C-alpha cells in the first residue's frame, strides 16, 4: 500500500506553559491594533493618484493648500482592516444582550434594514423636486400618522434628530405658546426621577431649573410638586415611565395641577417602549413628548448619521410646531404630498417657532421605524411593551434576593429594573461589579444613574431577549454580585479578559490626549 507519511498531529498535546507571550502582542483572533497614524504616516499616500501639477485653481476660488494637511496615508485594505479589527474589540447588540438601562438596546430587525436600503428611500436628496420624492414623503406622513395615533396626540414634528433635540423642540414650543399669550414664565420643574438630559435641555432653552424630589416609592412627590407650582412655572418635564423604571400613577393629576397653574407638561418619551400600545400619553394630559425612534421603534443606535426624535404635540401646542412638515392634499384626483415650509405656511402655521434642522429629518431612521411598525402591527406593538415589562420583572425578581432593589416592594417595575450597591462588602463598588460583568462577556448595565439610589444599576433587557438569554445573563450577574457581596478583591482588578484592563478614567479626564501629534508620541515613547 502507499502511505502518506506527511500527516500532521490532530490531537492537542499536553503542554505546561499554555499562556506564552506572543511576539506580536496579538492573542490569536484578539488582535492588537495601532492608531491610524501608526499604520500609515502622513508623508505617503495609500492611493495611487497622479501628481497634480501647477494648474488651474479657478474652481477653488483661487484658494490653494499651502502646507500638508497631515492625514495618515493608508491603502484601502489597511483602512478596512483597521476598522474591522477595532470593531472586534467592541460589544454590540448583534453580539449579545445589552442591558444598558434607559437605552432600550433591542434587536434591530433585518427586515427594517432591507426597507431602509431600498434606493427610493436610501438615495433621495432633500433638495430633489417634490414630484420625484412622493414615496419618501408619503412614508414620513404615514410614520407621523402612526406616532400620532399611538400617542393619542394632535400633531407631530418629524425633524428633531434625537431625544435631547426633541426635548428642546418641545420646550421651544412651550415657550412660544407662553410668549404668544404674553406670559413670561422662567422656571421649569424637573423631578429627580427624570432623565438627566431634561434639566440640561431646560437650561439650554433659557429656563431656570428647579428639582422636585422623589418620594419613598421612587415616584414624583405630588405634594412637593403642587406646592411649587405658581405663576413663574412654565412647565414640568416628566419622564414616564420614569428613570427608576416605574410608572408615574399620578400623571393625570400632575398634568391637571400644572395646567391649572397655567403651565404646560413635557413628557420625556424615552421609555415609551414600556407602554406603547397600552397607554396613550395624550390621555394623560401631556402637551409635548419626544419619541426616540432608536429605542421604541428599533432603529439602530447610531445609524450612519444622526438619529430621529420626533415630537408629538397636544392641540394647544400644535400651532407652534416647527417647520418643515409633510402635508397630504388632494390633487388631480389622488393623494399628493407637499412640504410645508416658510414660503408656503398659511395662517394655520404662521405661529411656528421656526426650524430645528435644515431639512425634514433622518430618512434612514424613518424607513426603518415604519417598517418596524408595519411588521409588528398594532397588536404586535402592544406585545412589545408587554414582553419588555415581563422580561424586566423576571430580572428584578430573580435578582432581588442578591441585589438590593429599593423599589421592588412597591410592585412590578416597567421596562427596567433598578438595583443599588447596598449589601456589597466594604470597599466594593458598582463599578467593580460592572467590570466583572465585562469579563463574563456582557456590556455592563447603566451605572450610577438615576441619582436617587446609591451606586445605581439600571438593567433594561428589552423584549427581544429569550428566557434562555435572560437566564444566562442572570447567572452571570448573580455570580459577579456574589463576589461583590463576599468582598472578592480580585474583582477590583477586573476586567481580566477584555482587550484592555481597567482604564484610568481620572487620568483620561485630567490629561486628555485628543489630537495625534507625532512629536507627542515620540516623547511618550521615550
Amino acid at each position, binding site marked *: 500500500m502507499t502511505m502518506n507519511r506527511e500527516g500532521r498531529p490532530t490531537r492537542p498535546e499536553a503542554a505546561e506553559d499554555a499562556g506564552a507571550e506572543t511576539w506580536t502582542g496579538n492573542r490569536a483572533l484578539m488582535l492588537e491594533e495601532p492608531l491610524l497614524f501608526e499604520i500609515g504616516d502622513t508623508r505617503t499616500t495609500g492611493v495611487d493618484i497622479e501628481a497634480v501639477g501647477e494648474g488651474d485653481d479657478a474652481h477653488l476660488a483661487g484658494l490653494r493648500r499651502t502646507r500638508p494637511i497631515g492625514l495618515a496615508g493608508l491603502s484601502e485594505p489597511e483602512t478596512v482592516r483597521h476598522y474591522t479589527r477595532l470593531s472586534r474589540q467592541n460589544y454590540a447588540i448583534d453580539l449579545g444582550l445589552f442591558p444598558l438601562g434607559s437605552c432600550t438596546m433591542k434587536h434591530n430587525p433585518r427586515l427594517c434594514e432591507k426597507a431602509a436600503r431600498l434606493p427610493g428611500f436610501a438615495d433621495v436628496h432633500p433638495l430633489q423636486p417634490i414630484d420625484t420624492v412622493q414615496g419618501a414623503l408619503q412614508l414620513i406622513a404615514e410614520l407621523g400618522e402612526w406616532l400620532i395615533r399611538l400617542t393619542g396626540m394632535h400633531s407631530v414634528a418629524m425633524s428633531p434628530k434625537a431625544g435631547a433635540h426633541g426635548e428642546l423642540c418641545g420646550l421651544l414650543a412651550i415657550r412660544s405658546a407662553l410668549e404668544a399669550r404674553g406670559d413670561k414664565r422662567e422656571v421649569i420643574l424637573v423631578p429627580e426621577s427624570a432623565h438627566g438630559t431634561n434639566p440640561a435641555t431646560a437650561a439650554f432653552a433659557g429656563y431656570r431649573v428647579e428639582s422636585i424630589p422623589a418620594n419613598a416609592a421612587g415616584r414624583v412627590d405630588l405634594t412637593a410638586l403642587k406646592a411649587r407650582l405658581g405663576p413663574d412655572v412654565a412647565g414640568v418635564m416628566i419622564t414616564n415611565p420614569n428613570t427608576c423604571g416605574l410608572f408615574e400613577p399620578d400623571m393625570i393629576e400632575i398634568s391637571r395641577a400644572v395646567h391649572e397653574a397655567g403651565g404646560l407638561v413635557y413628557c420625556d418619551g424615552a421609555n415609551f417602549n414600556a407602554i406603547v400600545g397600552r397607554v396613550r400619553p395624550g390621555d394623560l394630559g401631556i402637551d409635548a413628548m419626544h419619541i426616540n425612534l432608536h429605542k421604541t421603534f428599533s432603529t439602530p443606535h447610531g445609524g450612519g448619521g444622526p438619529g430621529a426624535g420626533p415630537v408629538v404635540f397636544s392641540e394647544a401646542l400644535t400651532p407652534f410646531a416647527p417647520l418643515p412638515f409633510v402635508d397630504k392634499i388632494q390633487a388631480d384626483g389622488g393623494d399628493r404630498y407637499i412640504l410645508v415650509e416658510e414660503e408656503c405656511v398659511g395662517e394655520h402655521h404662521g405661529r411656528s417657532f421656526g426650524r430645528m434642522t435644515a431639512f425634514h429629518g433622518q430618512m434612514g431612521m424613518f424607513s426603518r421605524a415604519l417598517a418596524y411598525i408595519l411588521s409588528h402591527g398594532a397588536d404586535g406593538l402592544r406585545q412589545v411593551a408587554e414582553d419588555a415589562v415581563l422580561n424586566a420583572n423576571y430580572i428584578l425578581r430573580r435578582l432581588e434576593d442578591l441585589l438590593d432593589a429599593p423599589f421592588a416592594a412597591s410592585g412590578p417595575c416597567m421596562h427596567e429594573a433598578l438595583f443599588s450597591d447596598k449589601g456589597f462588602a466594604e470597599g466594593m463598588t458598582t463599578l467593580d461589579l460592572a467590570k466583572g460583568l465585562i469579563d463574563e462577556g456582557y456590556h455592563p448595565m447603566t451605572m450610577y444613574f438615576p441619582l436617587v439610589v446609591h451606586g445605581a444599576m439600571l438593567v433594561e433587557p428589552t423584549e427581544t431577549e429569550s428566557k434562555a438569554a435572560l437566564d444566562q445573563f442572570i447567572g452571570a450577574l448573580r455570580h459577579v454580585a456574589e463576589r461583590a457581596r463576599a468582598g472578592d478583591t480580585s474583582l477590583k482588578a477586573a476586567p481580566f479578559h477584555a482587550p484592555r484592563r481597567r482604564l484610568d478614567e*481620572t487620568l483620561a*479626564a485630567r490629561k486628555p490626549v485628543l489630537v495625534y501629534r507625532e512629536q507627542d508620541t515620540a516623547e511618550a515613547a521615550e
Partner: protein
Amino acid sequence: MSVYYSKEHEWIRVDGDVAAVGITDFAQAQLGDVVFVEVPEAGRRLSRGGEAAVVESVKAASDVYAPLSGEVVEGNQALVDDPALANSDPEGAGWFFRMRLSDTHEVNDLMDADQYKAFCDSQ
C-alpha cells in the same frame, strides 16, 4: 481667623473681611476624583447662594455656591492647573477663591466645625 462651613459643603476661612472658600473633605470624598475646576475672576461680584465656581469629577459636575456676599479677590490658579489638589488637600492648597465680604455678619448663618460634623453625620 475662624473657619465656618456651609450646608453646600464648603469651608470658609475668614480673616478680617477676607474669606477663603473651598470644598470640604467630605465633599471631595463624595465627588470622587476631581478632574476640572473653574474659579471666578478677581473683581466678580458674588451674592450669597449664587453660582461662584464649578467643580467636575469623573462622576458629576457641580456648582460651588458663594457662601457669603462680596467681591472676588483672587481665584486659585494652582487649583485650575492641578484639579487633583481638591482631593489631596481640599481644606488647604485646594482652596477655590478668596473674596472680600460685603457683610461680615453673614457668617453668623454658617456652621462651625462641630455643627458641620453633625450635619454630615445626618446626611
